[in-house]
């Protein structure tokens, strides 16, 4: 065992707010060794980012302050170092990359300037330039000379994160703190960045403190895991031990709340409630309220840290001095399946509710004095899909592929440029706005961000009733009120929520309100646009359970727009994979996810970090970024990134090839002479 490079002991960082003192970080200890990756795992608001900022004395002042603890970097206590000398540590010995490369780079300075600032002193002008270009090249940025003079907005998200990494590496730090480095990126780009980090770590031997909420990323990257909950570390263990046998009830619950194909047909084991407010003094265990194994002692006495070699846990269950006879037995690991078994995953849809044929949504590009139309952004370019009654179609793709626009095109929130959308036999694209209004109650939408999609000035009751009023539903005001309360209870909220404002609710509760709002007009179809992307894993499970339960009870159809493939595996019946405005593969979930045909689908599936890392998964490397839909590559749109591209791929867009009644893909690999070149 090598000596620890960084040793954190009893670190406490508190914030003074009008609501009282928030104990964001409340006594955490960990060690970091050279060449090792320690993952700090936790949900939002549990204090992991503040822990990282504390190490650098970068906690936002004056509200935040470090009240106790030591951070030993070698023999030096970092927290005791005055600000002036701290600058020699920041960036030089401990460097950071942040979550949002978009906002973490200065928009008005060039990439080159920003990286140069991070170089140690004593570089001549020419040498500094060379060094920056070398750094950019080393993080995999092609054409570094040109990128040197470019501004952040000229780079794609993945490239910006690469530039951030180059900046962090500029002074060859001993420790790299990576704060959710890939959360804002698409899975194929995430795979690129994670691989880059691993390679750089092997080359330089730096220690990495990886902050993340994603168990998959942890499994991929970490040597050691520390789980944070409500400002404390509740479990710490080597990766293998942790994934083989998580010990803390919270960690165990996290695993079980993850959706996956093995849990299809079952309710997910969601953790009830949400992370408690840290603006209080805790007496018992912080997880007790949400723990199904808690007993009286858990609410009265805070558990101590029980250390074993290499690992430790903060839970009364593992305390040898506490008899656990009173402990509630753990719920069986496979939760009982929901009462009504979902429609069998195989078997075609019986009755089609929505059918879109060759749907196109093009946005004009204007240019010149008279703003002539010089081209089109083909956001959606010929999409044909069907959604059966009571079924879920997942639309999967990376950001910018046009999946949200498909949703808007269906709902006629954007009028499609061409193609048809028939809903229950009625052609929507031909309807006037006036004729469309009564139709709208039959298809509703739930948006991604529950914080932005509810009007903050309206009471929850009014938000729910507005749709009913517009559609003249629900009768008398009293009846409407009763209906509103019934809806709120249906989605798992108290009826009193009616008289409160959206900001009084947590993210998960707000998404429940969004769902209740959609349900208020008795729709048949709900377009769910990334409904759980903004939520924590434990809350995501609650929402997925609710959506599934509602489908079983009410026979709803869902168009589930998402980039999260494990959600698709868990929830969807059919899946369509979208790339640059077109569907490249579609079929029943098990067909597409178990035997993907299109190279893009294969790459997408392989790029998702899995928690079972030892199965020998091979990541298919996709180079580069998604091209712009205003100027898609000729031939097959995917060919520049495709590992299996041939000459034919550069020339024509492939026609569909069928593998079963439901499964088809558009790829030259499977084309027989007869059905190539159907399009273009």
């Amino acid at each position, binding site marked *: 065992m090598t000596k620890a490079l960084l040793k954190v002991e009893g670190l406490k960082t508190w914030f003074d707010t009008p609501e009282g003192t928030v104990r964001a970080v409340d006594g955490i200890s960990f060690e970091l060794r050279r060449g090792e990756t320690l993952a700090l795992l936790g949900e939002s608001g549990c204090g992991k980012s503040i822990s990282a900022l504390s190490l650098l004395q970068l906690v936002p002042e*004056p509200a935040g302050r470090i009240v106790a603890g030591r951070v030993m970097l070698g023999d030096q206590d970092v927290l005791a170092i005055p600000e002036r000398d701290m600058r020699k540590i920041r960036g030089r010995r401990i*460097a950071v990359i*942040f979550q949002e490369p978009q*906002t973490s780079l*200065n*928009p008005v300075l060039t990439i080159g300037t920003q990286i140069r*600032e*991070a170089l140690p002193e004593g570089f001549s002008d020419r040498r500094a330039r060379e060094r920056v270009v070398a750094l950019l090249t080393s993080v995999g940025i092609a054409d570094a000379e040109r990128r040197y003079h470019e501004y952040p*907005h000229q780079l794609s998200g993945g490239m910006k994160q690469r530039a951030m990494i180059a900046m962090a590496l500029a002074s060859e730090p001993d420790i790299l703190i990576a704060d959710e480095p890939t959360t804002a990126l698409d899975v194929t780009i995430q795979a690129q960045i994670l691989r880059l980090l691993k390679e750089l770590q092997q080359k330089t031997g730096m220690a990495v403190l990886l902050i993340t909420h994603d168990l998959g990323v942890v499994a991929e990257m970490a040597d050691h895991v520390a789980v944070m909950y409500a400002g404390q570390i509740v479990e710490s263990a080597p990766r293998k031990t942790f994934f083989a046998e998580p010990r803390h009830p919270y960690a165990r619950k996290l695993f079980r709340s993850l959706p996956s194909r093995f849990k299809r047909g079952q309710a997910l084991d969601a953790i009830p409630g949400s992370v408690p407010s840290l603006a209080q003094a805790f007496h018992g265990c912080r997880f007790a309220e949400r723990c199904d194994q808690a007993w009286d002692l858990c609410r009265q006495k805070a558990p101590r840290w029980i250390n074993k070699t290499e690992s430790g846990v903060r839970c009364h269950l593992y305390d040898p001095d506490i008899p656990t006879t009173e402990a509630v037995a753990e719920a069986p690991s496979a939760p009982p399946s929901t009462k009504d078994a979902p429609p069998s995953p195989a078997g075609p849809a019986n009755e089609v509710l929505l059918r879109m044929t060759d749907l196109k949504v093009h946005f004009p590009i204007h240019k010149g004095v*008279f703003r002539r139309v010089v081209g089109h952004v083909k956001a959606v370019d010929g999409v044909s899909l069907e959604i059966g009654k009571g079924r879920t179609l997942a639309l999967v793709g990376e950001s910018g592929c046009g999946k949200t626009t498909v949703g808007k095109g269906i709902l006629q929130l954007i009028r499609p440029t061409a193609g048809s959308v028939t809903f229950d036999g009625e052609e929507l694209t031909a309807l006037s706005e006036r004729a469309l209004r009564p139709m709208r109650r039959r298809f509703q939408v739930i948006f991604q961000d529950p914080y932005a999609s509810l009007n903050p000035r309206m009471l929850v009751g009014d938000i729910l009733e507005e749709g009913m009023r517009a559609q003249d539903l629900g009768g008398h005001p009293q009846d409407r009120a009763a209906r509103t309360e019934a809806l709120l209870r249906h989605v798992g909220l108290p009826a009193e929520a009616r008289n409160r404002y959206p900001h009084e609710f947590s993210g998960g509760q707000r998404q429940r309100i969004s769902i209740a709002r959609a349900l208020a007009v008795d729709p048949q179809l709900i377009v769910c646009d990334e409904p759980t992307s903004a939520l924590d894993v434990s809350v995501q499970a609650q929402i997925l359970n609710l959506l599934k339960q509602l489908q079983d009870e009410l026979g709803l159809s869902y168009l589930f727009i998402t980039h999260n493939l494990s959600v698709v595996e868990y929830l969807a019946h059919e899946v369509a994979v979208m790339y640059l405005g077109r569907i490249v593969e579609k079929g029943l979930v098990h067909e597409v996810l178990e035997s993907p045909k299109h190279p893009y689908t294969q790459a997408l599936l392989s790029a998702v970090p899995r928690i079972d890392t030892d199965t020998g998964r091979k990541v298919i490397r996709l180079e580069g970024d998604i091209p712009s839909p205003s100027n898609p590559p000729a031939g097959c749109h995917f060919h520049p990134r495709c590992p299996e591209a041939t000459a034919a791929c550069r020339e024509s867009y492939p026609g569909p090839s069928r593998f079963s009644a439901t499964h088809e893909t558009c790829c030259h690999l499977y084309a027989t002479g007869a059905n190539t070149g159907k399009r273009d």
Partner: protein
Amino acid sequence: MIAYIVRRLLYAVPILIGVNLLTFALFFFVNSPDDMARIHLGMKRVTPEAIAKWKEDRGYDKPLLYNSRAAGADKFTDTIFFRHSVRLFVFDFGRSDQGRNIGRDIMSRMWPSLAIALPTFLVGILVNITFAMLLAFFRGSYLDTWGVVVAVIMMSISTLFYVIGGQYLVSKLLHLVPISGYDTGVEAIKFIILPVIIGVIGGIGSSTRLYRTFFLEEINKDYVRTARAKGLSELRVLFHHVLKNAMIPILTGVVVIIPLLFIGSLIMESFFGIPGLGSYTIDAINSQDFAIVRAMVFLGSVLYIIGLILTDISYTVVDPRVRLN
């Protein structure tokens, strides 16, 4: 970029025509030439002949829009509308009701206006940004809190107070510079100093407070955290990272008034006796000289439209993310 500017200039044409029509309606329908004549000649004992002569001298005796007695194109050109309104488009302002050449007046009075307005503008920006940065640097401290309090007090006080107070203190008690007046050449400096200082002081309160919020907004952004995490000093962070971003809203906010600097300030010029366009306008209003007022209203609109176009262009200069098209 060029295409954008051309398009914006084309957009300006209908706006200017609208402004022109509105001023015409305001000055000749609401207030007919007969009314103007009466105001100038006095209400009592005015003979119709005197009115007719007054109108004839100034060309107000013509029909408003259509001259049926004239021949050919003159039917439209030999009218009040054409002579007094359409000609404004080529900056032919004609003669004032007192018979002065307005165009020449504007050319000569523009310079004293600029001599006051331009230094006030430049020094003002510099001073306000400096104060705002100072408060932002010491954010949350007593200096910041009291700075904001002082700024609020200063913006609550009327400009007139600064003018009169300044004149009393600096000129009357201390005899440092003349109370008012103007001169040409180097001598002008002693007349310029006081109005410039007072103009700057009058603007400090509101601008400092506004700019401070711009700085604070930037300071709380993620890229500042990145800059600090690189190990940069707080001064470097402030001057190199924050300032450049905060300058975007500041600059684009002030660019719009740059063309209007030519017109000067109504209040400052009349209180300090500066023979600029501001006092020109005030005098014209006082003497009911509508020809001058009309010219200044039109000129003001033209300069304002130019200011708006300059604002859009200035975005591309200070913000690399903005490309006009």
